[in-house]
């Protein structure tokens, strides 16, 4: 009986997936035509991933900028619905991600499953923040004069995100979700050694009502892709989570040229711990609006 099953399985040749980038809602190969070998934790070949070029990075910035108006202009409620939809879609593709995370990080099936479940819950956590962050970080200011004065957070713009190198999926989502929850758009550089979960995430985002260009995923050499992003004049901020100390310093210097908001790499022992709100506030501007309150005259105020 078992022999027979084995034979049937041998007859069935599996179909490999061609891993592609996710840019502007589409799945292009790298314009450079290059790929690199991705292996599992034991060195076994898994796939050839696109080796993105500077041009791919610039294309991704264009896509992210194009998506910014619509995404930042959407209501917070709408963004929350979309992010929650991502969690719903992920739940249905849990098996695939458990497989990819187990391969990428050398985890057992059950440990990988725990990581994927924590990742889904992370999306849900950030989905709930979209319409609350303004209530936690903004508010009315009691200025000493006849003025209405209200401070509100607004998204910074296009954020380049260097995903953590080790935590290929939970770490990845933990740096993407806070960026887009508040209305920014992102250009994400996947973990260099383990980019496959990130590239597959693009397929989930493409079917989750996330508008094309809100998240763009590039795979390749982190240092090679990050340099043009850090220097790009139309990128507003950069999260250096996936950069080592030397690279992070170089990128921070390049980022200073147009005063990008920089989130320096911080040691994270446990990506599954509940985050604070710092990854959101790092990429928020505060806008304060003043307006005279006038006075009750016979004809109201003169303003």
């Amino acid at each position, binding site marked *: 009986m078992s022999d027979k099953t084995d034979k049937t399985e041998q007859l069935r040749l599996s179909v490999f997936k061609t891993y592609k980038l996710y840019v502007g809602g589409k799945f292009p190969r790298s314009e450079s035509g290059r790929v690199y070998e991705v292996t599992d934790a034991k060195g076994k070949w898994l796939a050839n991933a696109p080796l993105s070029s500077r041009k791919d990075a610039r294309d991704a910035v264009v896509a992210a900028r194009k998506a910014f108006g619509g995404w930042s202009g959407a209501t917070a409620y709408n963004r929350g619905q979309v992010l929650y939809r991502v969690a719903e879609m992920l739940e249905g593709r849990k098996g695939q991600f458990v497989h990819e995370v187990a391969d990428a990080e050398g985890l057992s099936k059950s440990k990988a499953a725990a990581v994927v479940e924590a990742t889904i819950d992370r999306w849900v956590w950030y989905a709930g923040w979209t319409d609350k962050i303004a209530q936690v970080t903004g508010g009315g200011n009691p200025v000493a004069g006849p003025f209405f004065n209200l401070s509100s957070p607004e998204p910074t713009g296009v954020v380049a995100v260097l995903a953590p190198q080790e935590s290929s999926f939970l770490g990845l989502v933990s740096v993407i979700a806070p960026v887009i929850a508040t209305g920014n758009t992102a250009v994400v550089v996947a973990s260099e050694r383990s980019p496959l979960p990130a590239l597959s995430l693009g397929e989930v985002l493409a079917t989750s009502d996330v508008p094309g260009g809100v998240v763009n995923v590039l795979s390749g050499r982190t240092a090679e892709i990050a340099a043009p992003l850090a220097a790009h004049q139309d990128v507003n901020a950069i999260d250096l989570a996936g950069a080592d100390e030397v690279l992070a310093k170089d990128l921070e210097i390049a980022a200073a040229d147009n005063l990008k908001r920089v989130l320096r790499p911080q040691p994270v022992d446990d990506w599954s711990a509940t985050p604070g709100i710092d990854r959101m506030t790092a990429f928020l501007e505060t806008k304060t609006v003043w307006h005279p309150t006038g006075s*009750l005259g016979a004809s*109201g*105020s003169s303003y």
Partner: protein
Amino acid sequence: MDMQLQTSAFAYAPAPESRAIVDIAPSYGLFIDGEFTEAADGKVFKTVSPSTEEVLSEVAQAGTEDVDRAVRAARKAFEKWSALPGSERAKYLFRIARIIQERSRELAVLETLDNGKPIKETRDADLPLVAAHFFYYAGWADKLEHAGFGATPRPLGVAGQVIPWNFPLLMLAWKIAPALATGNTVVLKPAETTPLSALFFADICRQAGLPRGVVNILPGYGDTGAALVAHPDVNKVAFTGSTAVGKEIAKTVAGTRKKLTLELGGKGANIVFDDAPIDQAVEGIVNGIFFNQGQVCCAGSRLLVQESIEDELLDSLKRRLSTLRLGDPLDKNTDIGAINSEEQLTRITSLVEQGEAEGAERWSPDCELPSSGYWFAPTLFTKVTQAHTVARDEIFGPVLSVLTFRTPDEAVAKANNTPYGLSAGIWTEKGSRILAVAGKLRAGVVWSNTFNKFDPTSPFGGYKESGFGREGGRHGLEAYLDVR
């Protein structure tokens, strides 16, 4: 004014929403500890469709013994529910929000049948707000430490909640969503004229896999509600309804440790200054008093219009009222539906008669009322003074009292001349005047150049005898947390 021509220009073919989407059972039980069950004493009552007087279903009527059983179920469920990680409670609430979205058309038709309000409103206002409310508070369940109520805010325990008939499912959402998000369990009593959507909600809780006892639904009359708020093992009482009942409840819980929030009546002033955009103001006035047949606690039931534009505004308003379509609530073109009950219709009728007797001038557009069901034509009172009953009492019907003012100071004084303080409206093009007037109004919600706007993120509630506590927004969490 040629009213006939106006009306015929707006003649619409019938466009009824199908009621086939909703399957109403001939009878419903109480929902206690995850099961539908009969009342201990076997009592039932009928719920009717106010637009036709058709009996929709027969519903179990909870008595004192049932209240006790439900509170015990909620107490038992509280231990595990409050101990769940917030992220797990969040996911239950997200499930509920999603199922409400999926079943929203069914629930909209159901609500229209049981309440009498137009399908246009249940479909486009009530149901989207219901789902959004659960969605919003779902997200708070695992973020309470960020809400500004201390590092580890704790739930209170069992919440006894009594809701009105004007927005049955929305008031349920306002009560249940924040209570569950913060880790409380609930026993909720829907109004006797509109029990059905709460019972359908019980089914949604089952679909969502909500642990038994976390939500208990007890249809019944005022005595059921009184028994619930008086139950010694209830930790929190939340009530939306009349100011008179609110005061009774405040007396009942006096001397206990029960936390109380009340959302009561109103006599909202809608203030229109001479520089207001007239057409927009007219739309806002109409929405303010005729939305849900005026059966809204925050209705803009007093129109305060600056004297210099009174004639122009009233002409415009009367012209607009002549185009409102009253009739079958299931018709997608209907603007004005049925009054919720015979009792409410009697109350509106009597107050309007009193208004006439006291000398206010009554006006209604030419408007044919259906022969069965409970109906009241949109009604305006002019030449109203502050002493008139129609300017002082909450009518809770499609009746607008028009008063005038000359200066902003006078407008503010008149607007605040009421024991209520729930809502107000300000219509002017001048931003500084909006803010100056808003600053002087003793009301919990002030709408400027708009009216009757609701959002789960925005706190709602009253000053003075309109009650205390806020529902909605970050502020709405406080009512269900031990913040000592």
